[in-house]
C-alpha cells in the first residue's frame, strides 16, 4: 500500500507492507534509527515519537494508518544545529546512560510538556496543575529506563519546564 507522510518536515511517499509498524518503517525503511525498539508491544516507551504533535508509541502505530501524518522523531528535535532545550538539559544533568531509552524519553517529554489537565497524582482537579517532580515522574512513567536515570531525567525536564 502506498502512503504519504511527513517525517521531521520531509515528505515521504512509500509503499508499505500493511503489517509494518511506524517504528519499523522509520528504522528499517527510512534509515531513521533514532527511535528505538525495546519491546515492540507498547510496554517500554523507547519508540515514542510525536504524531501530529502528540506523543505516541510508534511500535503500536501501523504505518498504513499514518497517511497525511506529521511525525517528529528524535532526529527532528534539534533545529539548525541547535539542540532542543530538553536535549541540552539531558546532557547537562546526565539524564542518560546507555542512551537506548533516551530518544523515547525526549519525545515523550516534549509531548508531555505540551499536555494540559490533571494526572493520576494531581490533588486539585480544577485549574492547571503545577508541574511538580511528582507530576513529572507520573507523566513520564510510560518510558522505562533500565539504567535508572530517572532522578536525572526529572531534574532535566524540570529545568526546561521552569
Amino acid at each position, binding site marked *: 500500500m502506498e502512503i504519504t507522510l511527513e517525517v521531521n518536515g520531509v515528505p515521504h511517499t512509500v509503499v508499505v*507492507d500493511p*503489517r*509494518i509498524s511506524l517504528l*519499523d518503517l522509520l*528504522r*528499517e525503511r527510512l*534509515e*531513521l*534509527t*533514532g*527511535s*528505538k*525498539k*525495546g*519491546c*515492540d*508491544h507498547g*510496554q*517500554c516507551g*523507547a519508540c515514542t515519537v510525536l504524531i501530529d504533535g502528540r506523543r505516541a508509541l510508534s511500535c503500536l502505530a501501523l504505518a498504513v494508518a499514518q497517511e497525511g501524518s506529521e511525525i517528529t*522523531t*528524535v*532526529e527532528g*528535535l*534539534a533545529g539548525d544545529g541547535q*539542540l532542543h532545550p530538553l*536535549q541540552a538539559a*539531558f*546532557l*547537562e544533568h*546526565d539524564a*542518560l*546512560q*546507555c*542512551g*537506548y*531509552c*533516551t*530518544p523515547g524519553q*525526549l519525545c515523550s517529554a516534549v509531548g508531555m510538556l505540551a499536555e494540559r489537565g490533571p494526572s493520576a*497524582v494531581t490533588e486539585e482537579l480544577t485549574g492547571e496543575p503545577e508541574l511538580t517532580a511528582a507530576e*513529572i*515522574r*507520573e507523566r*513520564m*512513567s*510510560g*518510558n*522505562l*529506563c*533500565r*539504567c*535508572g*536515570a*530517572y*532522578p*536525572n*531525567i*526529572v531534574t532535566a525536564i524540570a529545568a526546561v519546564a521552569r
Partner: protein
Amino acid sequence: MIRIEGRDKVTGRATYAAEYPVKRLAYCYPVQAEIAHGRVAGIDTTTALAMPGVLTVLSCMEPPELSPEADPELALFQRREVAYRGQFVAAVVADSYDNARAAAGAVRVAYEPASHDVRLRADHPGLYKPEKVNPDLPTDTEKGQVAAGLAAAEVTVEATYTTPATHNNPMEPHATVALWSGAGDLTLFDASQGVTYARNIVAQALGLRPERVRVVSRHVGGGFGSKGTPRPNAVLAALAARAAGRPVKVALTRHQMYDVTGYRTPTIQRIRLGADAEGRITALEHEVAEQSSTLVEFAEQTASPTRIMYATPSLRTAHRLVRLDVATPSWMRAPGECPGMFALESAMDELAVAAGLDPVELRVRNDPDAEPASGLPFSSRNLVACLREGARRFGWQDRDPAPGARRDGRRLVGTGVASSTYPARRLPSQASASIENGGYVVRIAAADIGTGARTALTRIAATALDVDPDLVRIELGDSDLPHASLAGGSMGTASWGTAVTLACQDLLRDGKHGFADTTEILRTLPNLARHAFGAQFAEVRVDADTGEVRISRMLGVFAAGHIVDATLARSQFIGGMIMGIGMALMEQTVTDLEFGGFTNRDLAQYHVPVNADIERIDAVWLDEEDDELNPMGAKGIGEIGIVGTAAAVANAVYHATGRRIRDLPITPAKLLL
C-alpha cells in the same frame, strides 16, 4: 564531565547493533521449542518456504556446520534434543522482518516430549557440589566449627531466604548484523559487553581463526551482564548470512530475550548466625541451592560475600547446584553478591533485633581486621566509615527500633540499613596511544554499555598525559582494536584504565606511539583482599490497607577508592540502587511448572521500576585512598549499588510493619496474607 557520546545519544545518531545501514540486508527470525524437554521428531518447512520473501530455513533437521568446540548454548541446531522451552530449533531467513516472522510462525515442529523437571528445591536429589563457582571461586569454605560457635552463642538466627529468577532486561534487545566477505571473513555488529571476548567465542563456535572475525559494538543499550557473552543471536546471524549468501540481521524480541540471553538463578539460601551477649558473631553459615541448565554449568557465587563481611571464629559457606530443564542462567548485575547479601544482610538485621542491638552498631562491632575466610589483609576497607557517615546523613540516631510503631495516615513508616560489598578485580587488557593530527588517540577494544567508559577513559588518558581531556580521543567497541577485557564484574575502568595509563606513559617515553599489555603486571600483584564497601539506608511507607510499599528515601554511601568522574559515578551508583529497588519490590520471572519456560516474558508482566517508583534517592562516597589497586586508585562501581538495596528495603519493611519478608520480591500479597 558531560558524556562524550551524549550528544550522539540525545540526537539519535548513536548507532546500536541492529542499526548499521547494510545493503541487501535479510532478516532472520527464530523458531523456539514448545516443550521443556524431549526431542524434535520432525520439522515441516513446506508452508514457510512457500511464503513471500522467504530465502531459507535453518533447522536441527539439517544441522548447519559448526565447530564441535562451540559452547552448548551457541551450538545452534546441532542436536534434535530440546534442553529447555524456548531453545531455538529452527529459524527463517526472509527479505523483510515481517516476512521472516510470519514464515517462522508457519514452521511446523513435531516433538517427542519427555518428562521435565524445572523446579528448584532445597531437597532436590540432583543437587551436587560443582568444582568451582563463578568466576573461579571455591565452591565451599570452612573455618572453625559452626556447631560449636552456635552452641556458644547467646543469640542465634536460623532462617531461609529465597530469591526468584530475575532477568537483566537491558532496554536494547540483543541483536546482531552479520556480513561475510568474499574471502570468508565475518563481521558482526553485535550488542556486546566485550568485543575481544565475543570475537574469540564466536570464532570458536564457527571453527574460524579469531583473526577472521571482527565484532563491532560501538554503542550498547545496556547489558547488566546479559551481553557479557555472545548469545545465540550472534551465531544465528552468522549461520543465516552464510546460508542466505547475504547480510542478515537477527534482532531478538523482548520475549525471546527471556529464554536465550541469561538470567539470575533463583536461590534458596539458609543462614545460621550466632552471637555472644555483646553481639559479637560466634558462628556464621551460608548454604545455597541454585540451578543451571542441562547444557551449561553456571554456578552463581551467592555465598561469596559472606566470606569477606564479618569477623567470626567459625564460618562455613557452601554452594549446591541442580541441573534442570531450564534456560541457562548467567551473569546479572553483581552475580553472587546481590542475592547473597540480601540473605546475609537480612539475617544481620534479624540478629540485631534478637540481640537488642542497633543494626549499624552490630555491623560496626563485627568489622574484621582481615578477610574472614582467607585471612588476607584488606587493601582498604571502610565499611564502618560508610555506616557512620550514612547514619549521620540519614538521621539514623533518632531511630526507635520498635517495629510497626510509626504511622503516617494509612502508611506504616520504617527505616532499614544494609551493608554492600563488591570485589575490586582486574583482567588483562591492551591499549595503544598515539599522536595524530595534533591530538592524542587512545585505542582499546573496551565497551561503553552506558557506564561512561569513553568519558572515564578520556579522563584517565588525559591525566596520564597531563593534557586537556579535549585533546584526547578514545576509540573503543571494535575487536580490531587492542584486545581488552569485557565490561563486567565492575572491572572495566580498572582493567582498561591500567592499560590506557601505561600506553600513555609509553607514548610519553616514545614521543609518537605507545602500547601496553597488562597481562604480566597482573600476574605479580601482592595477595590482598581488594573490595569496595558501602552502606545503604532506606525509608519505606507501607500502605496498611493495600500492602503497597513506597520507598520514600534511599541513601547509599560507598567507599570505592578514587572516583574517576563524579557525575558518571553518581549515575552508576543510583542506577544500581534503582535496579535493587526492582529486585526488592517487583522483579521476578515465574517458571511455568507445567510447560517449562517462563510465564511472564515481557515488560507488562515482568515489572521493573518506573519513574514514579523513585522518590528521594541519593548516593555519596568517601574519599578513599588505596595504593594497592591500579594507577587510578579506583575500585569498580557498576555493581555495588544494587548489592545492599534489597536487604535495606526488606529491613525497613520489617521496621515499618513487623513483618519479616524472606522471600523476594516483597509484593503486597506477602504483606497482607
